């Protein structure tokens, strides 16, 4: 079957579908499926728009709302994952996936589905080490920290995915698996994106979580986006046993949807001719969801997933035959993903814009139905209960900041204003000069007039990030760049000092690279409970 893959959508659904149509006419035939690798921007209304972590000047309604309302219909089954530019409140309603519009399916925080027998998995968000080991504690209204942390990949999703044993045909991630750049034309990549060089050489560009999943699944295809460049790679995995054929993964990252950009690719993928032509649940994945339901964590406290270290009574949550049969029974042997989309939020009306639309933390009926059927927990219900009891969501007076934010739109983005939408977003990929003129939602350093950057809103993340870094395993290699994130590396708390000092990076043309970038000025951080972590390290080293 023909599968189209899109990079960062940025809400340009009309353009993507139109280009798809043209590709069909110019190519060998109709396209069966569209996979989008994040930054989908399923923005239904003005409230959703406010939950998107972009600078105000990039906050555009785009075209998704027309598909939500039913005015338009996606011409091809569309499956997508989340990135770092999303209507986070909307996607939050569907942690296990669901329809955001007819024929447009969100995979959830992580998810696996089947289409015509092809197994498609994905993980939403981007990796950020200091949020990785937190629970899903965020809920609307978001504050400057949670509007970003909400799309940071969590350990529990990786853990659940790693329980899967059956082969994966296609896997989607928004950010790239770390080190994947070594498996393609790296020189060409660095010619196009020269500011990646340092991080590529240091092996810090990309997500270690995605890298672990790539190693685990060894899928036939892996598609990504995020870095706004087309890059193909062919990775030959190590054969498990001698004599066994080594698996290979075809990796492809795509650009964002703009004219003359490589944002779309049409691929021929083998499918099962006897498999149905509708989206199906994946039994093994549902079984793992049921098995891991007790692990749901809606707190901000850092935690580690169970492992066989004497501290946990259970660490294997893989799907047994019996458990899978139980799930089949629950579903009455009908794996079809129900077509149960319904409009639950007001849709944007261009003739009647609502600037003061209230942000509501919703329980989505699709999630309710899914959780009820499987007997698992709706995280949002848990969050709401916790919120009522303990005010855990870090509630924030969004409205006031929105007003100040709009008035400050023309000021430099690099100020100490902690309002969510005008501060630096360290998850942004910085553009090189040739892109600065484009109307891109990615923030650029062209606005930056002063090297004295003090985005203090991120400071609170720092002590958490250091403690986080100390405990991460070797397989989840986190260099000092993960916490400090300047393009050229810098001294870190770990004592690894690549040599970059304060201010040096700011003299560069400011090519902020990966999603883990943190401004240079936050080097001096007082660590909480420093003595405790030093003791832990001593134990780990033993």
């Amino acid at each position, binding site marked *: 079957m023909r599968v189209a893959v899109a990079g960062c959508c940025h809400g340009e659904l009309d353009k993507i579908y139109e280009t798809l149509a043209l590709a069909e006419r*110019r190519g060998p035939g109709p396209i069966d499926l569209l996979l989008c690798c994040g930054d989908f921007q399923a923005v239904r209304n003005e409230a959703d728009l406010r939950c998107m972590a972009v600078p105000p000047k990039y906050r555009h309604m785009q075209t998704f709302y027309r598909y939500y309302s039913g005015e338009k219909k996606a011409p091809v089954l569309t499956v997508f994952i989340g990135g770092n530019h999303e209507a986070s409140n909307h996607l939050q309603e569907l942690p296990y996936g669901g329809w955001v519009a007819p024929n447009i399916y969100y995979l959830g925080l992580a998810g696996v589905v089947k289409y015509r027998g092809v197994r498609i998995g994905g993980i939403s968000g981007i990796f950020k080490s200091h949020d990785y080991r937190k629970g899903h504690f965020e809920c609307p209204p978001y504050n400057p920290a949670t509007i970003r942390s909400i799309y940071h990949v969590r350990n529990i999703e990786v853990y659940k995915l790693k329980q899967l044993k059956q082969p994966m045909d296609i896997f989607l991630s928004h950010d790239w698996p770390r080190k994947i750049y070594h498996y393609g034309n790296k020189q060409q990549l660095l010619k196009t994106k020269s500011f990646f060089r340092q991080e590529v050489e240091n092996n810090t560009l990309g997500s270690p979580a995605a890298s672990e999943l790539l190693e685990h699944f060894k899928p036939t295809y892996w598609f990504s986006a995020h870095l706004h460049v087309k890059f193909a790679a062919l990775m030959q995995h190590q054969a498990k046993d001698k004599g066994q054929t080594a698996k290979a993964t075809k990796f492809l990252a795509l650009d964002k949807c703009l004219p003359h950009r490589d944002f779309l690719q049409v691929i021929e993928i083998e499918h099962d001719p006897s498999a149905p032509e509708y989206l199906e649940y994946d039994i093994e994945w549902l079984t793992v969801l049921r098995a891991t339901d007790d692990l749901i964590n809606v707190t901000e406290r850092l935690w580690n997933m169970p492992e066989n270290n004497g501290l946990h009574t259970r660490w294997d949550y893989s799907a047994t035959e019996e458990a899978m049969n139980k799930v089949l029974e629950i579903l009455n042997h009908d794996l079809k993903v129900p077509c149960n989309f319904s409009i639950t939020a007001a849709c944007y009306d261009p003739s009647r814009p609502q600037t003061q639309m209230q942000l509501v933390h919703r329980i989505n009926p699709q999630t309710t139905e899914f959780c009820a059927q499987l007997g698992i927990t709706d995280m949002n219900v848990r969050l709401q209960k916790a919120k009522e009891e303990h005010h855990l969501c870090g509630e924030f007076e969004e409205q006031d900041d929105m007003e100040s934010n709009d008035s400050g739109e023309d000021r430099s983005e690099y100020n100490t204003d902690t309002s969510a939408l005008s501060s630096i977003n360290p998850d942004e990929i910085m553009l090189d000069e040739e892109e600065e003129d484009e109307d891109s939602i990615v923030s650029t350093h062209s606005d930056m007039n002063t090297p004295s950057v003090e985005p203090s809103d991120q400071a609170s993340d720092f002590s958490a990030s250091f403690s986080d870094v100390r405990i991460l395993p070797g397989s989840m290699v986190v260099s000092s760049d993960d916490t400090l994130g300047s393009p050229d590396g810098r001294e870190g708390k770990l004592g690894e000092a690549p040599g970059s000092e304060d201010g040096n990076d700011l003299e560069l043309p400011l090519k902020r690279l990966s999603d883990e970038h943190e401004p240079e000025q936050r080097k001096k951080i007082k660590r909480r409970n420093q003595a405790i972590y030093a003791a832990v390290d001593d134990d780990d080293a033993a």
Partner: protein
Amino acid sequence: MHRQNFRPPTPPYPGAGVGGWGSGSSFRGTPGGGGPRPPSPRDGYGSPHHTPPYGPRSRPYGSSHSPRHGGSFPGGRFGSPSPGGYPGSYSKSPAGSQQHFGYSPGQQQTHPQGSPRTSTPFGSGRGREKRMSNELENYFKPSMLEDPWAGLEPVSVVDINQQYSNTQTFTGKKGRYFC
């Protein structure tokens, strides 16, 4: 639960010949992925072989194109045309047409950036179609249909790991999974 009344897609497509699927294609299925796949009691959704509930041609979930006719599937070879010269009839009107994408003739087209156009120097209909077509050509690239991995040689994980193993910073025991 309320179910949304979907506006069915209207693009016409040729008669839905109930052709067999490719018989020669090999598929590395996912064994035991979900156990047996019995026929769904709701086969109307998304299947080209059945009349869906919304109308004779609509497919609320799934891709709205006719099934392939006979012959063997290309078998994964990228870029080879479907046997039988399947005409790309999947629903797509020319880029200039507004029908498929939900625009009503005469309805004001709202540009996402907010500049409505009701007339052009070229006339209200044809000029707009031409402009849209030109704009669309800027988005499409022939490379979108080409094999992105053509010319790439597989690179071994073992080789890369050996090459870069001394640049990693380990913060915990090697090989210990610590999520």
